[in-house]
């Protein structure tokens, strides 16, 4: 039962200049499956992700990834160690083609399932058709797929996802649910930060709720789906108590 966690976040404090955003966040992720961190707009979800990938270095606290301390490493080293990011707003390289975007991050790594260009094109067939197209000419949904594909081809041990559903149509969101479930089945570990409660409950097994820079709640997704009081208090929305996800 007692797995070694793939990622441990130990009381991190992250600042932008003077503003103290993360005020002692604690998290622990087990290997395999998807964990979601939920929170309202502006509570510091993106800041958490930025601290994990290394865009912002926490002033206090520690981040352990696969047992080693990565708190001070720069982003490229973290990617080397096995992290990958699907950032908020996608941030694909607009002047590069789809194929070049994938080449920018591709790396080989000893793992069970190996993602290469062909693999991600099978996962996202639309991208195969548009492989020579400049990424800035893709639609929003395609850009999101490309952002996910770009992260996958680095064959990460842990994939960080920052609000992947933002700005997508309901049918695209359903598509993403399918894709994430498939990734989970294949044994990929994922960390999702989301505002979209329903989506998170659909795809994640375990949830944390972030509020005012700290983790205020932790449970399985199933438990949270039956706690409308918690949902209302920390997220301001509720999916209703009776309906069970999946």
């Amino acid at each position, binding site marked *: 039962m007692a797995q070694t966690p793939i990622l441990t976040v130990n009381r991190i404090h992250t600042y932008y200049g003077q503003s103290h955003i993360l005020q002692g966040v604690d998290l622990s992720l087990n290997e395999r499956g998807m964990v979601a961190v939920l929170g309202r707009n502006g509570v510091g979800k993106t800041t958490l992700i930025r601290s994990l*990938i*290394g*865009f912002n270095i926490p002033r206090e606290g520690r981040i352990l990834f696969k047992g080693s301390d990565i708190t001070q490493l*720069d*982003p*490229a080293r973290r*990617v*080397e160690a096995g992290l*990958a*990011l699907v*950032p908020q707003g996608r*941030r694909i*390289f*607009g*002047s*590069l083609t789809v194929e*070049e*975007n994938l*080449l*920018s*991050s591709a*790396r080989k790594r000893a793992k069970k399932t190996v993602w290469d260009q062909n693999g991600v094109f099978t996962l996202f067939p639309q991208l195969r058709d548009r492989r020579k197209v400049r990424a800035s000419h893709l639609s929003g949904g395609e850009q999101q797929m490309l952002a996910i594909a*770009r*992260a996958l081809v*680095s064959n990460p041990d842990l994939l960080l996802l920052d609000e992947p559903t933002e700005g997508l149509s309901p049918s695209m969101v359903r598509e993403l649910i399918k894709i994430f479930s498939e990734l989970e089945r294949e044994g990929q570990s994922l960390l999702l930060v989301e505002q979209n409660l329903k989506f998170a409950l659909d795809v994640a097994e375990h949830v944390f709720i972030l509020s005012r820079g700290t983790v205020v709640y932790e449970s399985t997704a199933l438990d949270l789906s039956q706690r409308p009081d918690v949902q209302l208090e920390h997220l301001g929305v509720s999916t209703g108590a009776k309906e069970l996800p999946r």
Partner: protein
Amino acid sequence: MLYWLTHIVNGLSFGMLLFVIAAGLSLIFGLCRIVNLSHGSFYLLGGYIGFSVARFTGSFPLAVIAAMLSMAALGMLTERYLLRRFRVNPLAQVLLTFGLIFVFGDLAQWIWGGTPVLLEKVPMLSGATNIAGFSYPTYRLLILLIGVVIVLLLWWILARTRLGIFIRAAVDDGEMATGVGIRMNLLMTVTFGFGTLLTGLAGCIGAPFLGVYPGLDIEVLLYAMAVVIVGGLGSLKGAFIGALLVGILDSMAKALWPETGMFSMFALMAIALIAKPTGLFGLPMAPSSQVSVTEEMFLDPAPSSTSGSLSAAKTDWWARPAFAWTCAACLLAAGLVCPIILPTYYVRLFTLALIWSIFAMSLDLILGLGGIVSLGHAVFFGICAYTIGLTALRLTSSLFLQIGSALFVCAFAALVLGWLLLRSRGVYFMMLTIAFSEVFRAIAHSWRSVTGGGDGLAAIPRPAWTTSVETFYYCAFLVCIAVFVFLRFFVKSRIGIALVGIRESEKRMTSLGYNVERVKLLSFVVAGVLGGVAGLLYVYFNGYVSPEYFSVDTSAQAITMIIFGGAGTLIGPIIGAFFVVYVKNILSTVTERWTLILGILFVLMVIAAPSGVVGLWRKEWYKFRKKKSLSSE
């Protein structure tokens, strides 16, 4: 026909040389988001090293390789050990490369001396080649060929290799590039080194027909900047088209109008600016690429002397206004009695320091207060000086008319230049200010019939009283105080407050309903005229004018003074002026390497104490007072 063909081929080959230089500049800018102002210095050093290696080994290809490799190494060292530490502060990076101009330039003069050297061509290449009935110099054709090879090579690297993908990804979004695992630090160092390698190559292959001589660094920098101002930074296409345009235009204009050909460069840049402030193919100026003003570097002109817990200290004697007034009165008294008690030698020195104080204060109005980093403030110094010289020599002996017309011309020039230059922002503005001041210097240099060329205007008739050291001292002293008081009022006025607001956030001031453009232009003109005042005092003090008045040295000295004293204050530039003038005076009796020392001083100031003496003083002061107020609780 042949005449024109020759000039076109010459222009094309010069343009290709410029392309090799500007491609490096552009590549560095695209990735590192800084303009390497010392790019011309790498060209110069490449030329000298090529010359030495060719003389030592007798082999031209070896010279080229040596120049390339040594400049790549020097560039990578510069990036790694000087620039990298300022990744979050592009202004400090650009100022560092500015300081390096003087360090490298003077070092080169130290090693290779002040006389031009000419690299011998390979005998095989020194003849002429016949094509379609016309004969062209073979070497020029070779340069054309090298240019084309480099265009293709760069295109291939960028479009067809993984390194190219990394570079383009990093140009798109540097942070995200690190987030997909691209080692940005390494990539930046390598790219910087590659850029300087190209310049070193250009320096060596350009040496056989341009020669290598002190001052070439700045000349090359001017041409490279003209290229990217026209073509745009961060784009190879822009560098290519800009380089050919500048190359051909320059060689045509110089053939047609030997004296005033440089005006064409002025016109070209002005047209490019009006048409598109970021050049024809330039990268759009993303907010991150704007030279942002950092609190660390610019001080608050009037810091709130007491805040929060420090208010307990208000009753201390040093915090009272009376103390400040007493200090001011003491300084004033010291200033008044100093000609009486000091030897003439020092009175002259102090007069010089006062003139420089005025110049530095005037620049600090836009640089420190407005965050408008002009590296070519010398333009106004020179324009005023030349107007005085010309009117005094040719038109009138009336002091009133001379000064009046000088200030008028200066104000007019400031208005036109401000209108043109303030369209651009950040690094483009910095480049343009250097470029325009250098164009003025080049014109003053070549337009012999009017400006007297490199000798300048000498024996300018001066009113009798100016020859008395004491009288002139008091005159400078009065003007300096007047400028100080005026600027103090200006800073506290609505416009001054708006200017500091613009420094902090232009967007916010616009949304508050300020006419940002007008505030900037007005401040620019005021700064220009006051800079001109310094220039006219300088002419009456010295009795001659030379093109060097326009040079970047003049601007650099003022910036050193500002950074030494503390940007954004009024007293800072004065402290800096007295320090720099005094040190320069001491050093010039011991060594000729004044420029080298100025450059090193400049670089060290930017690295160690970017907020200057006043900044250090305030920091210590607050610490001291905090301790005091804590212990009294």
